[in-house]
C-alpha cells in the first residue's frame, strides 16, 4: 500500500489536478496558433517587408540611398534632436521624481497626471501648439521676426516638439520606482553627513540606474522616430529641417520606394536595437539590480 503511493507511476491524483486547470492540448495549440497568426499579420510581416523592399533593388541602391547627402543631413538632425531632448527630459525626470517620491505635498496626484499629459495629446496637436506660440501668427511671431530668429520651420521648433513628445518617459519610470524605495537610505546618508548632491549621486541614482536607463531607451526611440509633431513644425526643407522619418516621407511621396525603404530600414534597425536593450534592462530589473 505504502509502496504503491510512493511509486512514481501512481502519481495520478497530482496529474488530474494539473489537468483540471489546464486546457486540452488541441485547445492550447489552436490558441497559440491564433495568437501567432495575429502577431504575424500585424507585426512580423510588415517588419520583414521593410527590409525586403529596402534591399529589393540590390545593395548598391540601398547604400547610395543611405549615404546620399540629404539622408546624412537627416541623420545628423535626428541625432541632434535626440541629443538635446533626451538629456533635458532626463534631468527633468530626476528632479520630478525626487520631489514627488521623497516628499509629501498637496496636489501631488494632479502633478503626476500633468506630467503624463503629453502622452494623451495627438502628435499633430503637439506640433500645432508650438506653431501657435512661435509661428508668424503666434504670440512671439513678430518679436522673433524682428530679431531675425526662427523657431518654426527651423531646428529649434523640431527640438521643442521632440522634447514635448518625449517629456514623460523618464519621469514616469522613476516616480513609482523611487516611491517604492522609500527614503530611509537617503536619510541615513544625510544623517551621516552627506550633502544633497552626494546623496543623489551615490545613493539614489545607483539605486534607480536600470529604471533610468529604461526611460532613456524609450525616450530616445521616440525622439528619433517622432513623425507627426516634427512634421508640423519642420517645413520639410531638404538637408536643413528634415529628420529621418520626414526624409522617409519625402522619398515615399516621390515614388522613390527603394530609397524610402532603405532609410526606413535604418529606423527599423533602431527599433530592433531598442527592443533588445529593453529586454536586457527588463531582465536586470527583474534581478533587482
Amino acid at each position, binding site marked *: 500500500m505504502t509502496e504503491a503511493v510512493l511509486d512514481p507511476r501512481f502519481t495520478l491524483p497530482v496529474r488530474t489536478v494539473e489537468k483540471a486547470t489546464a486546457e486540452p492540448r488541441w485547445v492550447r495549440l489552436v490558441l497559440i496558433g491564433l495568437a501567432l497568426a495575429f502577431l504575424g499579420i500585424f507585426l512580423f510581416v510588415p517588419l520583414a517587408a521593410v527590409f525586403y523592399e529596402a534591399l529589393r533593388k540590390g545593395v548598391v541602391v540601398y547604400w547610395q540611398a543611405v549615404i546620399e547627402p540629404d539622408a546624412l543631413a537627416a541623420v545628423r538632425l535626428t541625432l541632434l534632436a535626440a541629443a538635446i531632448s533626451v538629456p533635458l527630459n532626463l534631468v527633468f525626470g530626476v528632479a520630478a521624481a525626487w520631489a514627488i517620491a521623497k516628499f509629501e505635498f498637496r496636489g501631488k496626484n494632479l502633478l503626476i497626471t500633468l506630467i*503624463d499629459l503629453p502622452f494623451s495629446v495627438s502628435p499633430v496637436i503637439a506640433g500645432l501648439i508650438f506653431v501657435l506660440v512661435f509661428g508668424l501668427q503666434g504670440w512671439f511671431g513678430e518679436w522673433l521676426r524682428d530679431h531675425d530668429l526662427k523657431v518654426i520651420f527651423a531646428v529649434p521648433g523640431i527640438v521643442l516638439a521632440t522634447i514635448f513628445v518625449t517629456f514623460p518617459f523618464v519621469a514616469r519610470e522613476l516616480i513609482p520606482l523611487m516611491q517604492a524605495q522609500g527614503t530611509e537610505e537617503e*536619510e541615513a546618508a544625510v544623517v551621516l553627513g552627506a550633502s544633497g548632491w552626494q546623496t543623489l549621486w551615490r545613493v539614489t541614482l545607483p539605486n534607480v540606474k536600470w529604471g533610468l536607463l529604461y526611460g532613456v531607451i524609450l525616450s530616445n526611440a521616440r525622439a528619433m522616430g517622432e513623425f507627426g509633431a516634427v512634421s508640423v513644425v519642420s517645413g520639410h526643407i531638404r538637408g536643413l529641417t528634415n529628420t529621418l522619418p520626414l526624409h522617409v516621407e519625402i522619398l515615399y511621396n516621390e515614388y522613390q520606394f527603394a530609397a524610402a525603404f532603405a532609410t526606413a530600414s535604418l529606423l527599423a534597425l533602431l527599433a530592433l536595437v531598442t527592443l533588445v536593450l529593453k529586454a536586457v534592462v527588463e531582465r536586470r530589473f527583474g534581478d533587482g539590480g
Partner: protein
Amino acid sequence: MSLALRRHTVLPGFGIALGFTLLYLCLIVLIPLSATFLKTFSLTWDAFWTAVTAPRVLASYRLTFGASFLAAGINAVFGLLVAWVLVRYRFPGKRIIDAFVDLPFALPTAVAGIALAAVYSTNGWIGSLFVPYGIKIAFTPLGVLVALTFIGLPFVVRTVQPVLEDLEPELEEAAATLGASRLQTFTKIVFPTLLPALLTGFALAFARAIGEYGSVIFIAGNLPMVSEITPLLIITKLEQYDYAGATALAVVMLLISFTLLLIINLLQWWARRRRAAP
C-alpha cells in the same frame, strides 16, 4: 492623502526639485497647450461651431472614432489571447515574441505606415490575398483600421499580462474541484478578474488611436469624406493658413483626449483596488 502636508524630513532639495519641475512643465507643456484654448477664443461661438461641425469634419470624426473603436476592440480580443498564450503556455521562441509585442512602441510611425501600405496594397504580400474576394485594404477606411490596430497592439497585452501572472492558481483549482468546466472557470473566475485591466488596455489603445497620424496617412488614401482622419484635417487646415480652424479642431480632440485620460485613471484605480482586495 494628498492633503497631508510635508512631513518633517532631513532630505534637502525639495524646493529646487519641485521648482524646476513646475517651471519645466509650464514652459514645455502647460503654456503651449493653453495656446490652443486661448486661440479658439478669437473665434465667435458660431464660427467655432461651424468649424467643428462642417460635413467634411464630421466625416473625419466618424472615421477616426469608428476605426479607433474597432481597432481597440480587435486589440482587446487578440491582446487578451496573446497575453494568455504568453503567460500560460510554453512554446519555442516565446521570449523573443514577448519582446516583439512592443514593436509598435519602438518602430517610428512613418516606417510602420509605409510598411503596412506595402504589405496591404493590392499587390502586397497580404493585400493580394484579398483581391480575389474584391476586398481592397490599403487606401480605403479598412487600411486605417489596420494601421490603428498595429499601433494599439501592445496596450492590452501589457495591461493584462501582469494581472494574469499574479492570478492565484487556487481560485481556478477551487473552481475545477467544484465541478466547473474549463470554459466556465474562464468566463466566471478568470475573465472578471481581468476585466478592469482589459478595459484599461482598451481605453489606452483607443486614446492612442484617435490621435495617431504617421502610420495612418500612408495607408489611408486620405480621400476627403471617405478616408481622411481628423489629425490630417488639422494639418490640411494649417497648410491653408486656417490657424483658427485647425485650432478649433485641436481643441475638440484635446477635450476628448482629456476625458479619456480621466476615464483611464478611474479604470486604473478600479483595477488596483480589484487587485488589492479580490
